[in-house]
């Protein structure tokens, strides 16, 4: 992987909510203010936990969307009790944050365009990479359930969007019906592209399809994996992803921590059949 020379320092911070508002029918934008200046690399995440009586045994991992000074931004979807509690909180509510954590997406490579694929709540790391690094020949595709689930205000106009079910779109914006990988396939087939790099985040089927899409072209593909986590910093081994072991047959794979070795992995090293 094209690693960064320096990874921003991880900090354990006190924080409070500054913004916690829906940006689409399913996605909520969270902005927090932390007690120190923060930096991150796209693909990295932070563990957030509530303070007070609703503090959980473990924090929850949230992919970082943006960071500026003491402000850190996330996008999330309510998936369980922890995110459910978070969605009900008003600005000012105290939190703790441990971050940034994990291995980021690779840096852009000159002469190698990037194809970005994101689905649903997988948007933040891909959008963060776009904002930090995108060049004119990079392309991005984003898929959601329906147009109401698309955070149109956050989505760059050059991005192509796809939906599972059609519905009303804002003036001047279009959403294709179908899978995001099919949309990318359709848009890129026939184009004379140099070897590119695929970066993907979203549901497992999307990531697997992104891997096949890249493999068919002989391109590199990096995917952002998601797993339930305990600590988020490599201490507990509670969030492992089965990956290939160098030079070993597939059955002889090994467990890699999603939080530390990941969450970004090469698609080809993941043992997809063993993923729940």
């Amino acid at each position, binding site marked *: 992987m094209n690693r960064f020379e320096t990874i921003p*320092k*991880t*900090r*354990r*911070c*006190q924080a409070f909510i500054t913004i916690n508002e829906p940006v689409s029918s399913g996605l909520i934008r969270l902005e927090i203010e932390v*007690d*120190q200046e923060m930096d991150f690399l796209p693909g990295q995440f932070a*563990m957030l*936990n509530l303070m007070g009586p609703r503090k*959980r*045994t*473990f*924090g929850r991992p949230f992919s970082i969307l943006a960071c500026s000074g003491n402000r850190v931004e996330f996008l999330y979807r309510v998936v369980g009790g922890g995110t459910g509690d978070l969605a009900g909180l008003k600005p000012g509510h105290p939190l*703790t944050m*441990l971050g940034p954590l994990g291995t980021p997406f690779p840096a852009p490579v000159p002469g190698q365009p990037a194809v970005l694929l994101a689905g649903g709540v997988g948007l933040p790391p891909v959008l963060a990479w776009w904002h930090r690094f995108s060049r004119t020949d990079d392309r991005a595709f984003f898929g959601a359930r329906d147009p109401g689930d698309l955070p149109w205000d956050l989505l760059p106009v050059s991005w192509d969007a796809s939906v599972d079910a059609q519905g009303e779109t804002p003036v001047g914006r279009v959403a294709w019906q179908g899978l995001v990988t099919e949309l990318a396939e359709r848009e890129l087939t026939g184009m004379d592209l140099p070897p590119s790099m695929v970066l993907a985040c979203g549901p497992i089927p999307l990531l697997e399809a992104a891997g096949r899409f890249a493999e068919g072209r002989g391109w590199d593909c990096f995917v952002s994996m998601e*797993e*339930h986590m*305990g*600590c988020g*910093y*490599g*201490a*507990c*081994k*509670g*969030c*492992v992803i089965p990956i290939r072991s160098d030079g070993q047959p597939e059955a002889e794979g*090994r*467990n890699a921590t999603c939080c*530390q070795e990941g969450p970004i992995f090469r698609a080809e090293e993941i043992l997809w059949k063993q993923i*729940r």
Partner: protein
Amino acid sequence: MNLPDWWKIDPCEPFVLGPREFPGRIWTASGCFAYGLTGHEISSRGFTSPYEGLGAVVSKTVTPMARTGNPMPRLCELPTGALNSIGLENVGFDEFLASVLPELERRGVPTVVSLAATRPDEFGVMVAALQMAGADYEHWHGVEINLSCPNVAEGGHDFGRDPETVARCVAAARKALPDRALLAKLTPNVADIASLAKAAAESGADAVSVINTVVGLEVDLTSGRPVLPRRYGGYSGPGVLPIALAKVDEIVQKAGVPVVGVGGIGGAQDALKFFALGAEAVQVGTAQMEDPFAAARIAADLSG
């Protein structure tokens, strides 16, 4: 924080346990802080590292051969803690000896090596190899033998429930460990923990670490099946604190064996409860996962 009048100890001052002087009394528990090489670069207001003020890091348990651990999910969060079923994933003893222990020494991490085995004599063999490799190490302070990991299929479980087996494991380790502390980590999943502690002490343990996790199970109501693939997990976190305190008390009262208290410690007040019952030191486990500075904060708070 306000400390009680009876509290006269500085937990960041050295203290003697068995043949060894430890740099402090606030430790991290096995399995909750990896091998003690994780998180050195993390900072927090008032702390330059999560290792500040720690008396020891008890390593993740190391077994004779590397283990890949249990299938996912390995953790199940509960309102009062969590169940875990990691399955002793570890790099294996040879790799630990070759690359982890030297790095712990280089970094100056006060270390207690946690070992598990399937037969008593394996403990002796591993400890002898440790003694050879680490004879000159300044920061390796001892060995904790894990007699009770409840989530390993081979029945690590029953291993530590029988006083005679406990005695044989401890004796085998003690024979090979002349000048470092030897601790035996005991399971709470027994009727008479004091007799286990007694057996451990009589066979040469300098202290017992009490408690390991409590056997637990959680059911997923959607599927009607246990959440963890191996059904049972080890329960830890705030919910086990009163169980741990009771087991520590039972040992102190009935067996008079030195105890390192572990189980459900989230803050300085929890740690104080173990010290009030006579614990020599305490270990912070599950709380360390949520906050890498949990143990360091307790050490700072109790130093006054």
